[in-house]
C-alpha cells in the first residue's frame, strides 16, 4: 500500500512526542506558548520535537494580522513573523502558519497591499503558510480574496493552509474549492480537518471530532486527499486517535 501525505494532530501544550507516537501521528502543528502573545515561547520538549523528525508546523500568534488597517499592528506582525519563523526553525519546523488577517475597516481589497508592506524585504527562516479564514472581513475567507493575495504570497515562498472547518463556515464546498485553488496555481502546503459544531455557511468554526458535527466528512476527506499535503486533525484529544486513522485511510486510498 502506498503511503499518502502524513496525517497528524495539533499538539496541545501538555502533549508530547510520546503522545504523537501513540496517536499514530506522522506530522504535527503546535503553538509556541500563549497564542495571544506577540512573542513565541520555547516548548520544554523542543529537543524531542526536533529529534522526532516529523513534519512540524508552528502556528504563529493569533495577534499577527498583516491585513490590519493599523500600521502599528502591521509593524508588530512583521516583527512577530520573523521571531516566530526563527523559533519554528529552531525546532526543525517546516512552516509557520498564520491566519490571513482581518481588516478592521472592512477594506479587504487593500489586504494584498497591506500584506506586501509586511512581507517587503523579509526573509523568513521557514516557509509561510497562510490559512483560509471564516470571517467576511478576512481576505482569505473567499477564493477571490485568496487569488488576490496569492501574487504577494507566492514570491515570498508562501503556501496556503486549507482549514476545512473554516471553509464549511463560509459555505464553500471543499472539493470544488481545492480544485479551484489548484487551477489558480495556489500552492497548498497544509490541510486542517475537523468536523464542525455549526451548520454549513454559519460563519462560525467550532471544531469537533470527525463524525461528531454537521460537516460532510466524506467531502472533507475527499478535499484533503485532493490537496496532496500534510493533514492536521484539529480535533479534541479524545478523538485524535480515531481521526488520524480515518484521515490516514482516506489519504492512502487516494494514493492508489
Amino acid at each position: 500500500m502506498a503511503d499518502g501525505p502524513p496525517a497528524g494532530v495539533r499538539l496541545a501544550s501538555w502533549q508530547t512526542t510520546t503522545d504523537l507516537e501513540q496517536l499514530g501521528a506522522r506530522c504535527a502543528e503546535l503553538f509556541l506558548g500563549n497564542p495571544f502573545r506577540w512573542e513565541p515561547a520555547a516548548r520544554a520538549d523542543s529537543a524531542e520535537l526536533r529529534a522526532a523528525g516529523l513534519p512540524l508546523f508552528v502556528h504563529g500568534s493569533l495577534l499577527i494580522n498583516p491585513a490590519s488597517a493599523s500600521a502599528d499592528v502591521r509593524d508588530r506582525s512583521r516583527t512577530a513573523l520573523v521571531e516566530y519563523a526563527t523559533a519554528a526553525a529552531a525546532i526543525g519546523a517546516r512552516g509557520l502558519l498564520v491566519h490571513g488577517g482581518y481588516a478592521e475597516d472592512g477594506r479587504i481589497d487593500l489586504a494584498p497591499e497591506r500584506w506586501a508592506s509586511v512581507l517587503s524585504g523579509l526573509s523568513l527562516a521557514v516557509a509561510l503558510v497562510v490559512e483560509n479564514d471564516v470571517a467576511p472581513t478576512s481576505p482569505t475567507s473567499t477564493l477571490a480574496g485568496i487569488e488576490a493575495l496569492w501574487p504577494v504570497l507566492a514570491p515570498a515562498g508562501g503556501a496556503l493552509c486549507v482549514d476545512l472547518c473554516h471553509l464549511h463556515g463560509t459555505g464553500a464546498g471543499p472539493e470544488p474549492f481545492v480544485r479551484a485553488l489548484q487551477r489558480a496555481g495556489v500552492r497548498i502546503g497544509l490541510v486542517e480537518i475537523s468536523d464542525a459544531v455549526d451548520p454549513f455557511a454559519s460563519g462560525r468554526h467550532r471544531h469537533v471530532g470527525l463524525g461528531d458535527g454537521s460537516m460532510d466528512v466524506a467531502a472533507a476527506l475527499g478535499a484533503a486527499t485532493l490537496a496532496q499535503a500534510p493533514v492536521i486533525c484539529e480535533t479534541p484529544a479524545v478523538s485524535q486517535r480515531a481521526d488520524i486513522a480515518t484521515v490516514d485511510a482516506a489519504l492512502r486510498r487516494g494514493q492508489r
Partner: protein
Amino acid sequence: VTFLFWTGPGFDFAGWLAVASAARWSPTGATLYVDEVTGGSAWLDAASRAAGVSVIPFLPDAWLSRAEALRYRGAIHPAHRSDIARFGVLRRAGGLYLDTDTITCAPLGVLPPSFVVRDERIVHLGVLALSDGHPLIDEFFERLMHVDPSVLDNYSSLVHLWTGVVDDRSDPVVALPASGFFPVPWPRWEELFDPASELELDGVVSLHHYGAFSRRLTGGMDHAWPADHPCPFSAAARRAQVGV
C-alpha cells in the same frame, strides 16, 4: 464598587448567592448588571431585593464603542459577552468584578484596589479588580479589536488573550494566588460538592465553583440545600452569612 454581570436565562440559586454574598462582604454593596437578552427568574427577582444589591440593565452602547458593541453582540459564547462587558464597566467605573458562580465568604474591602488572580497557566477573568482607565484594560480592548473576530468562536480564547495582556505589560498590577478564589481547579469542580472533600476554606475570599459545570447541581437548589448537603460549596454558603 463590586459588580457582577449576567446574560441569558437560567439565573439560579447560585446566582442569587453570588450577588447576595458579594453585597454582604463588600463595603459598598454590589451591583448586578443584566444585559438586554436576560430572561427573568424568581432568583433574579430575589437578588434585586437582597440587602445592598442593585440590579441594573447593561446597555452595551453606553459602555462600549460601536465596534466593541458589535463584538459583544456577535459573541457566540455568553461568557465572552460577560468578559467584554466587565472590561467596559471597569474602563469607565473601575472596581472589583466577580463572576456569578462565586460565593464570597470574607471581607472584600481588604483587597487591593487593583489586582488579578493567576495560577501557573492563566490569569483568571472570574475575579479581577482594576482602577478606571487602567492601561491593562486599554490593551485588552486593543487586542480584542485587532484579532480576527472568528477566533472568539473558541471558548477559551479570551482568557488566553487576557493572560497575554497581563504577561506582556510591564505596568505593575498585584497578582493574587488562585488559592483565595479558585482553590480547586476546574477539572476537579465536583470536589466542591463532594461530602468527602477535605478542602479547607480558611483563606478563601470568594469561592469559584465553575458554573458551566456546577449549574447542573445549582439549578435545582434553594436555601435549604446547603443545610442538607455538607460539602465545601455548602460550607462557603454558610460563611457567606446571607441566610443560607
